[in-house]
């Protein structure tokens, strides 16, 4: 021990010296190694997680109804062309690939795209569609001429459900991507992609040299792998640290995955454009966003444009900077030619091709914002927000683009000329299929692209005379007391109420003495309706309205009979659907079905009906609503529409002309239109001069179907004298045929019916 002690003064020093010179170095290296190793391990884990885990959250996609083609379909060639254009079909001389169509007069030849629907996959078909007039007369397989009973086109995508600033993409597998695209991409962005191991020192050196020579950053030395990493994990901050990180991660990525896996991820990840709050990522969605076509249908020039955009998506945005984008595209084409990816002929042809972009709104929710709003509300009621924005659901809606375009056009045409005098003029409309409650079209305001206040759903306005059918139905459901010919008193009325005297007036400021019940509704006489309502009682009318699924507050005062209550166009649609469907309540539906991210059925919204009006009164109220068009306030429709159609409807006008309403239907569809000002000021239109004109334009475009319900059992038709409301015979000149319930009240013989007495005799004798 002593020697040790003796040596101690020196050796500890020596030891310390050794410790200082050797141990700290190793320790430091070890710690560094541990940190770096740990960091690399962490990076590696991130790489793994990003790749193997759920890589991307996909917004739910929303689709319009698919167009069903069959012999007998009512459709004009112009409408068919519009539909095909919206779907991005190319008009060519001879269709060879899916998404191509040729037209020869009334004959179309096309190759459809495959699509997975709720009830299975519709494969690509080669079709021949022949039109005659306003109808498809024949549908054939174009290869052998065999008749095809039915074919579905793929549905138009009309929007997606995403969060603010969310990425959106359509996932592609490498096999689905045209070789031209990947080859061009590699030729432009990273020629040594298949040789390097994540980073390319040569490319960096070359880029460095080029940049130094020109004094600015001209070229990037990043490999595709590095670019992918940059898109995947890192922020956009330019720093050396980020560069190192990027390179490290790229090396790790290459160690773990094959070139093809990396390329596929790149093709799906790359950022290409901004669509409002939605970021467009990947070539799959990019192709649809710019060309409204799947990527496999793009031309060489279009593929080159997308490849060129990778370098700077906003700088080369072809919509904002078409010239710049074209130059970049042509550069890509030249490189492709130089690299012998395309031959000279293809090069020249592609250079001369226009950019071929679709408008910025095609294929986005900007196209039909009001309808997509309704869909979102229904979805949010039934699904969790996080599932909607991440699970890649496919939402199949009921929107019929043909009807939607027609509705918006009709509304804008009517509103536009009024804006000079009434800049505040607005309108809204809703079209539904009256047999199944499917919402076919919805306009929330006067401009199609404006996604603001959705008046069709949220504007609650005085409905005026639109409420009257509920009063008349309440009466007609008491057949012992009331028939369509029952006389109502339209003379001056003074009704004592607790707060004074109520004396309603007619719109024309005249009284009409005795009118038949159906005439009261047809001409929308306020006084006759008020008397009828008072006879029935407010409670009875409210019970009727509740049964017809009006759920908003209703005041139990006589003013209710004349429409002193607020409803939205959606509420009115729900109410009138009861009449249009022959007495059935049908819940409105905007969604048919939903598929999950894997294309498996997730949910279907069944068609449901519930009888709320018995067949006999349902028939009578339809007849009364038809008389509104035949001879009442909507009679000017007869200038445009054949009387044979049996159109039915009701006008609505509120005090001082603040609201203009029309709810009307044919044998297939119900459309409700409202016009007015958001500030509820008078705007000078009646129901007939405003909303009904929109309705008329709409049905002129979509075509009308006969509304002719079958006469239920227990009915008899009688001629009635218009003047007296009595039963007519050959002695009466001006008569109207009305249906009567056999066991119900019948009017007495009319004064003009001279043969009336004779007719009774044989019956007495029997």
């Amino acid at each position, binding site marked *: 021990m002593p020697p040790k002690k003796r040596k101690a003064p020196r050796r500890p020093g020596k030891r310390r010296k050794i410790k200082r010179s050797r141990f700290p170095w190793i320790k430091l290296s070890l710690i560094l190694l541990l940190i770096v190793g740990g960091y690399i391990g962490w990076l590696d884990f991130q790489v793994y997680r990003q790749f193997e885990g759920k890589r991307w959250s996909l917004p739910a996609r929303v689709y319009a109804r698919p167009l*069903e083609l069959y012999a007998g379909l009512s459709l004009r060639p112009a409408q068919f062309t519009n539909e095909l254009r919206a779907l991005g079909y190319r008009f060519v001389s001879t269709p060879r690939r899916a998404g191509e169509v040729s037209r020869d007069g009334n004959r179309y030849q096309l190759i459809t795209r495959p699509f997975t629907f709720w009830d299975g996959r519709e494969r690509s078909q080669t079709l021949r569609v022949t039109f005659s007039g306003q109808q498809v007369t024949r549908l054939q397989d174009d290869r052998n001429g065999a008749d095809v009973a039915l074919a579905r086109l793929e549905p138009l995508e009309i929007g997606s459900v995403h969060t603010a600033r969310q990425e959106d993409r359509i996932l592609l597998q490498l096999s689905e991507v045209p070789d031209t695209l990947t080859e061009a991409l590699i030729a432009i962005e990273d020629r040594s992609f298949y040789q390097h191991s994540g980073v390319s020192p040569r490319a960096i050196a070359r880029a460095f040299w080029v940049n130094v020579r020109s004094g600015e950053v001209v070229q990037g030395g990043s490999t595709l792998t590095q670019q992918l990493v940059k898109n995947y994990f890192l922020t956009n901050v330019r720093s050396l640290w980020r560069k190192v990180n990027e390179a490290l991660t790229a090396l790790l990525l290459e160690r773990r995955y094959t070139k093809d896996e990396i390329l596929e991820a790149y093709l799906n990840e790359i950022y290409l454009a901004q669509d409002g709050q939605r970021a467009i990522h990947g070539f799959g969605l990019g192709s649809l966003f710019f060309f409204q076509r799947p990527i496999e249908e793009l031309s060489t020039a279009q593929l080159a444009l997308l490849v060129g955009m990778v370098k700077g998506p906003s700088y080369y945005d072809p919509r904002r900077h078409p010239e710049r984008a074209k130059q970049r595209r042509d550069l890509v084409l030249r490189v492709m030619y130089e690299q012998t990816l395309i031959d000279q002929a293809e090069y020249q042809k592609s250079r001369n091709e226009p950019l071929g972009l679709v408008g910025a709104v095609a294929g986005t929710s900007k196209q039909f914002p009001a309808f997509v709003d309704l869909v979102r509300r229904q979805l949010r009621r039934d699904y969790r927000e996080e599932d909607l924005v991440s699970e890649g659901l496919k939402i199949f809606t009921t929107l019929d683009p043909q009807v939607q375009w027609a509705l918006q056009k009709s509304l804008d045409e009517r509103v*536009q000329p009024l804006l000079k005098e009434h800049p505040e003029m607005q309108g809204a409309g809703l079209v539904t299929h009256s047999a199944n409650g499917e919402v076919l079209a919805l306009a929330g305001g006067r401009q199609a692209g404006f996604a603001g206040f959705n008046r069709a759903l949220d504007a609650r306005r005085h409905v005026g005379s639109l409420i009257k059918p509920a009063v008349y139905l309440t009466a007609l459901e008491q057949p012992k007391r009331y028939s369509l010919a029952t006389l109502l008193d339209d003379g001056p009325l003074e009704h004592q109420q607790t707060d004074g005297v109520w004396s309603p007036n007619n719109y024309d400021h005249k009284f009409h003495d005795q009118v038949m019940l159906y005439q009261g509704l047809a001409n929308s006489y306020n006084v006759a309706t008020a008397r009828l309502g008072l006879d029935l009682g407010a409670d009875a009318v409210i019970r009727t309205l509740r049964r017809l699924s009006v759920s908003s507050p209703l005041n139990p005062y006589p003013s209710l009979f004349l429409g002193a209550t607020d409803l939205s166009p959606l509420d009115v649609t729900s109410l009138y659907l009861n009449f249009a469907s022959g007495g059935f309540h049908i819940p409105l539906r905007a969604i048919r079905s939903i598929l999950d991210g894997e294309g498996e059925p997730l949910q279907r919204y069944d068609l449901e009906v519930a009888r709320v009006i018995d067949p006999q009164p349902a028939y009578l109220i339809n007849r009364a609503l038809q008389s509104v068009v035949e001879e009442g306030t909507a009679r000017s429709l007869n200038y445009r529409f054949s009387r044979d159609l049996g159109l039915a409807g009701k006008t609505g006008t509120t005090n001082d002309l603040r609201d203009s309403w029309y709810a009307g239907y044919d044998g297939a569809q119900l459309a409700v239109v409202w016009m007015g000002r958001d500030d509820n000021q008078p705007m000078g239109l009646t129901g007939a001069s405003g909303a009904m004109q929109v309705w008329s334009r709409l049905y002129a*475009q979509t075509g009308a179907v006969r509304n002719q319900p079958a006469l239920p059992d227990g009915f008899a038709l009688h001629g009635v004298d218009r003047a007296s409301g009595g039963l007519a015979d050959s002695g009466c000149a001006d008569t109207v045929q009305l249906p009567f319930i056999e066991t119900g009240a019948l009017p007495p013989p009319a004064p003009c019916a001279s043969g009336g007495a004779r007719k009774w005799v044989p019956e007495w004798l029997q």
Partner: protein
Amino acid sequence: MVTIKRAFFLLILLLGACSTRPPSQLPPVVEGGSQSTESLPPGEEAAAAPVIEASPENRASQGAVVALLDRADHYQRLGDNDSASATLERALRIDPRNAQLWHRLAAVRLQQGKVAQAEQLAFKSNTLSGGDKSLQARNWALVARARWAQDDAAGARTAERKAAEARR
């Protein structure tokens, strides 16, 4: 069957042509799609506007409906009532006034155990059945089964009586 239907349809057309209508002051009817109504200038309600006639009756669409009915049969045999229901709804979009389709949908709902809906759909079928007593009988029989399933014995017996009446 199809030829009988077609003949019947022609008969209706002929009768329709014979029926007297008051002479109208309406302008001549423009048939066919050559004159598009889309091009009407705004505010144009003048007498010169063409009259919109009813869209042609889609007898030809029966081919599509029959194809869908076959497909619905196929699904039902496989026990896939959801697809059968979706297929029948597809057919109803093409031919919404076809009472047979509504009856078939009611039958599928009954199999799905949605008995209240089955009953309502049978009512709907009846309102469109016209004079088809045999279909009415089948609808009432279906209503009876739906009511038995809802423990509504009195209602079920009423429906059975109506089915018997319709069969007579």
